[in-house]
């Protein structure tokens, strides 16, 4: 972790547990809106987003401020990148301004990994292409723990566009380290067979009813139209076969929770009735985002 946080795959289970435990400390105490600390007072963090994002960027900003750090956010489309500056030059320019860490989102898989070989500054990956989104997996794990009390032995169904999903990859790597039974489900082109071999405990099921049966957690993914170069099936068919409705939720284990990294597309991958139901923990995920990112920033910078 000394060099930042690029992905979940290379983390040890112990490290993950430490972050999740610390994140619990940063959750707001009862009757308070948030917890504050000044462990990062005088430190500065740059949020560098090469892809549009609201929730992740704001979540990191709030997390950094609550720890007392200064934070500046750069939306890269509006900066020199659109003037043809290379990624390396953009980062070198930023580093010259001496931030203590760089939080980065980029549309190319591996962009932060590539940069980390040439930069001394720690980089926190806030999502790289179709590869990883480590803080999302951490906040998802925190949310599951809050609701179900454990990870070991659970069954988690991840449904949707898995191949293009960095959220799915980070979650698969994380949950697999905790002995979770992971079922991936979606249209064939979006769930290639090799996915079952990227981590232990993963299997693939193309039928949504079968995938959800006895699941403790139903994790829906956003349909990423911007990354799909060829539509996997006619638009109208997607919701019919892979959209989550109340009938599906009934197949899951009693007390199962429904998760979604957001932003949700109501009626495309999830019905409103499910999104707004008791089993939905979507807003808890957002809330935990801040606590988990505080834990990550503190670990890297304090």
């Amino acid at each position, binding site marked *: 972790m000394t060099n930042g946080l690029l992905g979940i*795959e290379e983390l040890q289970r112990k490290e993950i547990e430490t972050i999740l435990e610390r994140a619990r400390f940063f959750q707001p105490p009862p009757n308070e809106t948030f917890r504050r600390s000044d462990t990062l007072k005088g430190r500065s963090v740059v949020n560098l987003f090469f892809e549009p994002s609201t929730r992740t960027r704001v979540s990191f900003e709030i997390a950094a401020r609550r720890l007392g750090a200064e934070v500046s956010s750069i939306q890269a489309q509006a900066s020199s990148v659109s003037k043809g500056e*290379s*990624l*390396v030059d953009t980062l070198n320019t930023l580093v010259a301004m001496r931030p203590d860490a760089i939080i980065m989102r*980029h549309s*190319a*898989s*591996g*962009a932060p*990994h*590539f940069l980390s*070989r040439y930069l001394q500054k720690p980089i926190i990956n806030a999502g*790289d*292409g*179709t*590869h*990883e989104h480590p803080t999302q997996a951490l906040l998802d794990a925190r949310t599951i723990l809050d609701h179900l009390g454990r990870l070991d032995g659970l069954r988690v169904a991840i449904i949707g566009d898995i*191949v293009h999903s*960095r959220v799915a*990859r980070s979650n698969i790597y994380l949950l697999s380290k905790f002995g979770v039974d992971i079922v991936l489900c979606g249209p064939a082109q979006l769930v*290639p067979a*090799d*996915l079952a*071999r*990227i981590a232990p405990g993963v299997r693939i099921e193309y039928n949504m009813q079968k995938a959800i049966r006895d699941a403790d957690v139903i994790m829906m993914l956003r349909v990423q139209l911007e990354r799909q*170069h060829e539509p996997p099936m006619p638009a109208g068919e997607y919701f019919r076969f892979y959209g989550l409705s109340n009938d599906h939720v009934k197949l899951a284990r009693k007390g199962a929770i429904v998760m979604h990294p957001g932003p949700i597309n109501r009626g495309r991958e999830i019905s409103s009735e499910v999104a707004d139901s008791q089993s939905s923990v979507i807003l808890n995920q957002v809330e935990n985002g801040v606590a988990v990112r505080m834990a990550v920033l503190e670990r890297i910078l304090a």
Partner: protein
Amino acid sequence: MKRLILKNGRVIDPASKVDTVADVLVEDGVILGVAPNLSSSGAEVFDASGLIVAPGFIDMHVHLREPGFEHAETIESGARAAAAGGFTAVCCMPNTKPVNDSATVTSYIVDRARRDAAVRVFPIGAITKGSNGEELAAIASMKAAGVVAISDDGRPVMNARVMRRAMETAKALDLPLINHCEDLHLSSGGDMHEGVQSIRLGLRGIPSASEDVMVARDILLAELTGCRYHVAHLSAKRSLAMVAYARSKGLTVTCEVTPHHFAVSDTQIRPYDANYRMKPPLRGDDDVEAMLGGIADGTVDALATDHAPHPGDEKMQEFEKCPFGILGLETAIGLTLDRLVHPGRISLHRMIELYTTGPARILSLDLGSLAPGRPADITVISESAEWVYDVNRSPSKSRNSPFDGVEFRGGPVATIVNGLIVWQKD
């Protein structure tokens, strides 16, 4: 009258079935004789004791980038890199700017090479105009100007009908046709070999099938037309099996493998490092094993580097944006010794065949032999001297090698072209 004698080397010349400690005497660019204790009077003496003296190595697949991309490589710099890698001859692919699709461009390359190049340079002409896969290039005129084969390397002919016509033309002109086998629809958008690794890294896959389907198509067309057909940089195990099958049916189908495709698999790449980005991509462990097997059992006819220089700033980008290809000339012999000869998978004799008689036969070149009267192109190799590849000292204008800093046991020691020492290890 200029004489050179290489004393007491182990002379291995597969073409003449020679493997003996002897002297090699050269006069005016021609081999005069190979025998022990030849008189060295009046000759420059090269002490080859403890070294291997072989016919000059031929790299039948390089990119010299001139004309058009001189910031990446020139005929002059590429030829010096070839000499430093132990190669006395290279064949340059036509994807220059303009594309080598006419006698004018061919003649330009031939003239430049005559003036600037330390080693022999044989141009390969385009199959189609501009290598855009539609209309055949001026193949007969290019042959008259000096091309030794035709290929649309990097931009494979997708239209089977055009390929058929090209093969008919190649057959009539007795030119080999070399194809970079990649079905562009199947490989479209791909970053690396498709498999668990590409899925893990979130990169788009280039399936082996994109190579296999084109090899299959081309073999059928080679049978239809009777053309001498050669698969460039073969990398996939099923493609290799199909080449073996075609040959068992008596077809003149040959193939080459690059050192990086027999040396590195997709599980060994440094993730997101563009020096591991090339086409075809580094394949799976089983493909690498199949390449090693095919090289040993004779299915593979030649080793070739696909030396593909790209300047540093083009390779210092997001992985998906970087161009494909890596340098290869200076590390070829080291990698071949390391992965094939030292582990005992092939003999030195076989290694030398793969870089001499192998390519010479495919391209009908009057090279690759130390028989008296033949051109004095000689590669001197050490089987055991340890050295480290430092890409920053390469004569190439580019630096895109994944083998920078790698320690090798054995490699080229001297390169002799036309009886002149054009490179010697310091």
